[in-house]
């Protein structure tokens, strides 16, 4: 049955591709292109503006807010790292993002596999328990969390931020992995276990490699979420820590009231990793996100 569908699809797709190459330009299509491009320019304008301003000085910005930079050099970028502890904040953000993702990539697929294969009512129970996490916003539990970390001596450490991210990612992660593991044929695992492999080895050597597509989609979307997060580090890190990039920029807004150019510069720097991640994994972004969400 599924083979015939696949065959039908491949038959269908060939003429579609051939058609695509010969497809003529239509007026309506060009209109759509122009409208899309204009909308992009409007929505992206604040970022372009911040980028241009990051090359100007404070007096230039305030005398003529709409002026163009007179010279392009990296003075503001150098000053940002010299005059503030932006470097420490950047390192913190990198550590939080990388460590959280590394831990999640180990414990989350295992947990989802366990939830799917434990069988019976327990499967349903654990699944619903994790999914319930999707409906509990961080705001609902942040006050007891701060109290708990304070008592454990973890408050204002990176470990606190990492733990909160780990717990928060569980709901969506289980949803995504479980919907994928359902499609993994159990026969493969049975064959491996007949060959004498233990459950743990079966999982890491047989099942985990099959989960790589969903793992990459998960990593990419969550890397951006963790990198861009503002609220959790704001609550979990006080002034004894350099904070994350966003927290550091937020503090600068309060402290350096007369240094707009540094804030624009910080904003642009924080965008660079996002754009690199996106450029590197663009294909996964546009496919992976749609697959994960529609299945949920």
């Amino acid at each position: 049955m599924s083979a015939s569908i696949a065959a039908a699809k491949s038959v269908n797709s060939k003429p579609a591709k051939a058609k695509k190459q010969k497809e003529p330009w239509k007026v309506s299509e060009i209109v759509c292109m122009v409208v899309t491009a204009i909308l992009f320019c409007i929505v992206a304008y604040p970022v372009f503006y911040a980028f241009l301003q990051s090359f100007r000085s404070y007096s230039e910005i305030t005398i003529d807010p709409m002026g163009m930079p007179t010279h392009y050099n990296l003075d503001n970028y150098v000053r940002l790292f010299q005059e503030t502890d932006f470097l420490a904040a950047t390192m913190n953000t990198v550590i939080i993002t990388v460590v959280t993702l590394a831990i999640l990539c180990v414990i989350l697929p295992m947990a989802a596999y366990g939830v799917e294969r434990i069988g019976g009512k327990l499967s349903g129970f654990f699944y619903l328990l994790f999914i319930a996490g999707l409906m509990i916003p961080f705001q609902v539990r942040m006050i007891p969390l701060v109290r708990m970390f304070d008592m454990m001596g973890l408050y204002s450490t990176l470990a606190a931020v990492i733990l909160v991210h780990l717990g928060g990612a569980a709901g969506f992660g289980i949803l995504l992995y479980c919907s994928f593991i359902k499609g993994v044929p159990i026969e493969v695992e049975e064959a491996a276990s007949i060959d004498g492999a233990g459950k743990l080895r079966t999982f890491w050597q047989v099942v985990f490699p099959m989960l790589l597509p969903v793992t990459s989609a998960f990593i990419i979307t969550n890397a951006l979420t963790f990198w861009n997060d503002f609220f959790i580090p704001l609550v979990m890190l006080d002034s004894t820590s350099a904070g994350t990039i966003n927290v550091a920029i937020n503090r600068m807004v309060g402290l350096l009231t007369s240094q707009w150019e540094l804030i624009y510069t910080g904003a642009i720097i924080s965008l660079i990793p996002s754009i690199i991640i996106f450029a590197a994994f663009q294909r996964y972004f546009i496919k992976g996100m749609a697959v994960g969400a529609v299945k949920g």
Partner: protein
Amino acid sequence: MSTSLSVAATPSKTSHKSDSAAKSSTMSAVQRRNRWMMFFFILPMLVVFLAIVIIPSLQSIQLSFTDYDGISPTYNYVGVDNYHEIITSGRFWNAVKNTLILGIGSAFIINVISLVMALLLDRIHHFSGFFRTIVYLPSLVSAFIASTIWKYMLNYNFGAVNSILKKAGLEGWVHDWLGDSHIVVWVLLFLICFTLGGNTTLIYLSNLQSVPQELVEAAEVDGASGWQVFRHVTWPMLAGSVTVNFTLSLIGGWVIFDQIQVLTGGGPGFVSETMAFFIYRLGFGEYRAGFGSAAAVLLFIIVMITTVITNKYMRGREIQA
């Protein structure tokens, strides 16, 4: 989310009825060992999840009945005083109103924008990858960074917006955009909806491209106009992604915080506070963590009820369609 229930129905293997008693007992011993093994697979994530999500949520309920200030180690139980104070407080209802305007308003507007963008992208056949990329790019900018840039662009004296208006000769339009209590909530709504949709657009687009072309062509042959094709053919086929997108946007909408914290700080006065911001201010700015917990419990109830209702309503619509 509701499709998840089907997992519970996964049949467990009970096909060894005819086996001898001895064999079936060894089988179940193996099975039992496997189940324990699976439980150990779940354990690490489960421990973190319980410690970070479930237990603190329950503690929130406990703290909501106390006068905990967020710093001192002890607190007293005060019964339902916190809840009583909240529902009689104008500041709380103002926060609820703003949350409804910003949450539901942005969920609705962002979904309309995303659908329009998806329809535009669906008609672009040349360089489609390029156009998808530029539509997605703005969503790489986090709410925090976008708000920070806007905060300066909307500055009354030196901001880009007012200076454009002055240059264009529209002196009358110059406003203190974030300081005028009459318009500040609507300015915030505009800024939250200043997007091309990102993921939401991509989900609509992938659904649009799965609509069978034959249906659209058949309707066109029958003389349906462009709008009629959309209304009666495409729109019903989109029901699934509308449910997903609207539910996700709504969950995000209930906890709008970054924009408020950066742009207005809840001001002027308390005019632009949302519930998430209200809880944050009470817990960490005004040292009334017990009171804040009560607000948090109410927020959770609202999130849960609206999520279940929108899901129920929209799933029902899907079946009809």
